[in-house]
């Protein structure tokens, strides 16, 4: 077990790689009541074309299957894992993203037992035709719930605009039609391919004794027989740099129009320190351009084009990435036009100075400090970072080393006319 010390933050991180390849991290948090643990596989909605374990040919699986599998893992021959967790005083949950599926619990008592339950339920699948059929009704209602949510539709509408073929454009839960074809055998095939310990990471944060927890995980894993796993073969079609659609309008049962503009990122194959630097630089760029203290925000707010729903965000993973800016607006056409103009203006490099870099940097450092109050943030973000070869605890040092030149370069690389797209939600009547 190795110990990593972050003295400035007053945190210690313990790490060990198990013999079967599982990466385990433990971050003791003194004074906290709760222990939070996530058990995550590097498998999400985009991994829909791959060579199943032991097979030579690529298969393409139905949309929404990673999320479906997440639901089904909670059901066992003797009932529902939620019940077991709550008998042990824990609350359990799970989520599926584009690139990850995470299972988690939090509890203030019985931590060792809950951890055992977490590891075991994820490593002991139990799928039957009957329970798979039953889940289709539940997930169907989850899909319908998101279909009624205009912000979710707007978000996915924008991603669909950006991508020609990359599976990031597919809704994580799939559709009622696509999940209808899911069978228990397909679930097992996905499970065998992606849930090997060497493709997973366990993170425990809370008032725990790291030696004891590590020993418990070691013993648990030693009892299970995992064969050596070859590298997972995923396939993604080539995606061109320009967006698939420049604009889209969704008519929905709303009173207030919504508008988002997106920029499809290029240079998304990078990982590790290079990716960390790019991601942070783009975040600083967006802060300077659209943060609440920015001239742009003030101007748009004063004109009544945006309100407090306005937000911006940057997402990057291996193989895709995008920036998004927008929110509710009275005049979606005008807002789209203005946001696009602001973006293109920033490409000419005259808007970044030492002063706004320093301010954005200070803001980011303070925000990071606030975030590490949260066990959820630490576990989930650390895992995401690790799957991309990055180190969460490098965020502050990398921010400190950022220069105006870095921001200029990030802006000029991110922004390009042919990679900008717009999605609007408009009232039906």
């Amino acid at each position, binding site marked *: 077990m190795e110990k990593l010390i972050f003295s400035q933050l*007053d945190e210690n991180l313990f790490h060990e790689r198990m013999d079967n390849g599982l990466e385990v991290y433990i971050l003791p948090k003194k004074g906290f009541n709760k222990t939070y643990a996530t058990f995550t596989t590097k498998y999400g909605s985009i991994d829909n074309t791959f060579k199943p374990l032991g097979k030579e040919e690529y298969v393409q699986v139905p949309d929404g299957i990673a999320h479906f599998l997440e639901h089904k893992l909670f059901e066992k021959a003797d009932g529902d894992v939620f019940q077991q967790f*709550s008998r042990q005083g824990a609350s359990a949950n799970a989520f599926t993203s584009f690139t990850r599926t995470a299972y988690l619990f939090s509890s*203030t*008592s019985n931590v060792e037992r809950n951890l055992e339950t977490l590891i075991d339920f994820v490593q002991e699948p139990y799928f039957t035709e009957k329970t798979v059929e039953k889940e289709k*009704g539940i997930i169907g*209602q989850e899909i319908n*719930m998101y279909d009624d949510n205009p912000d979710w539709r707007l978000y996915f509408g924008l991603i669909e605009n950006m991508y020609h073929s990359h599976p990031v454009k597919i809704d994580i839960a799939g559709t009622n039609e696509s999940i209808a074809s899911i069978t228990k055998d397909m679930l097992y095939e996905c499970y065998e391919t992606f849930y090997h310990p060497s493709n997973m990471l366990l993170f425990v944060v809370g008032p725990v004794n790291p030696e004891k927890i590590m020993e418990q995980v070691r013993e648990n894993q030693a009892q299970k027989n995992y064969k050596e796993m070859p590298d997972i073969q995923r396939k993604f079609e080539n995606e061109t740099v320009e967006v698939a659609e420049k604009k889209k309008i969704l008519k929905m049962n709303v009173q207030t129009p919504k508008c988002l503009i997106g920029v499809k990122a290029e240079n998304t194959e990078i990982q590790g320190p290079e990716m960390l630097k790019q991601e942070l630089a783009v975040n600083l760029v967006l802060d300077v351009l659209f943060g*609440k*203290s920015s001239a742009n925000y003030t101007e748009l707010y004063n004109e009544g084009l945006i309100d407090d729903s306005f937000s911006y965000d940057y997402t990057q993973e291996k193989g895709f990435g995008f920036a998004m800016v927008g929110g509710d607006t009275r005049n979606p056409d005008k807002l789209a036009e203005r946001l696009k103009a602001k973006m293109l203006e920033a490409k000419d490099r005259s808007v970044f100075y030492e002063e706004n870099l320093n301010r954005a940097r200070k803001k980011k450092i303070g925000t990071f400090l606030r975030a590490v109050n949260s066990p959820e943030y630490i576990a989930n973000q650390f895992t995401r970072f690790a799957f991309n070869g990055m180190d969460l605890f490098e965020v502050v040092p990398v921010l400190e080393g950022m220069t105006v030149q870095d921001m200029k370069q990030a802006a000029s690389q991110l922004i390009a006319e042919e990679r900008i797209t717009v999605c609007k939600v408009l009232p039906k009547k």
Partner: protein
Amino acid sequence: MSLINVAEKRLEGFKLHIVKTKKFKTNTIVWRMKTPLKKETATLRALLPYVLQSSCRKFPETPALRSYLDDLYGASLHVDVAKKGEYQVISFTLEIANEKFLGQQDPLLKKGMELLANIIMEPLAVNGAFDSSTVEKEKRTLEQRIHSAYDDKMRYSSLRLIEEMCEGEPYAINVNGSLKDIGRISGVNLYEYYLQAFSSDEMDLYVVGDIEEEEVESLSKKLFIFNDRNPERIETSLTENKKEQVVKEEQDVKQGKLNIGCRTHIAYGDPDYAALQVFNGIFGGFSHSKLFLNVREKESLAYYAASRLESHKGIMMIMAGIESDKYNRTVEIIKEQLEEMKQGSFNDEEISQTKLVIENQMLETMDTARGIVDILYHSVIAAKDVTADEWLKAMETVSRNEIIAAAKKIDLDTIYFLTGKEGDQ
């Protein structure tokens, strides 16, 4: 040692609550003020904190104020207007880095408290009026906020349930006020209301973090000075009950949203309140509860099926998202489950499981600064001092019979269903 170590002191016009803890890398300052919900003032109140946070005498322009926050290592300033029981509560929350994790000496807590004092005590006002362009901008945003509640159908249906169920009671008043009243607000009458609110509201200041008690107290004394007051309280009626009414509304939605309101006749601080909490946990509060099992897991009718309590108003709300044609079946199951709870058809394991999960939830809430403030604030709303320790102890000793007794007090009041239009599906 108690679960939350709080030092409380009555200062001039408000009460100071200091929670010293080493858990966090930031310090959190929360200013809360409450008064009974009233139609005449709801909209003014919904607007006031947004006008205050956008400028002050020291920072007449919003971008200057926001830049200053960024310079204070991204201090977050957040205002909020919430309904807690039949009170309309305004909160100003400022969270700021603890300088000791930044390796520097800038006294951030002091600067943060000074800024908060600037914002609430020295607003940008001339000749008894707020700056009119600021007021107009924020009126526009408030209008949008009211409209946007319509667009989120889950939120909309729970708002509609309350409107129907509590018609005529203060609890039915929209916490964001009304579109009609926004038009009547000017820089002058809003400023008048500002003076009124700060001279008569019940006000509390919370400071949570790795702080020095004496320093916080002396800063608070110096920075925040108001007149003494005798804040107005409201006696919430727990007895109102309509005979079961059903309200259906058609809209273009894919999923029907079913929201059911019940009267519990039990409020926070009542002797049987802990029993009610355990009841709700067994019935619908968690993913091991009856509603989750029977509506979702057994019959695959819904993705979400849950209940929650509005503790200070004596209301329980049940919600589920379902196919429109599954309305009858779902309502039938929910009624059956409620009836079974009244008959005592739950076992000891469900009781102990639920108590454990409630305790867990409570302890987890204390791991965030805002959670700590929310727990403490319950005592202010109810005007009853119940510590977290006392509360947990009461909950742990709840008996099976007490849960049944609490269940028997519950009356179904209103069923609200937002359903898809026929032929739309």
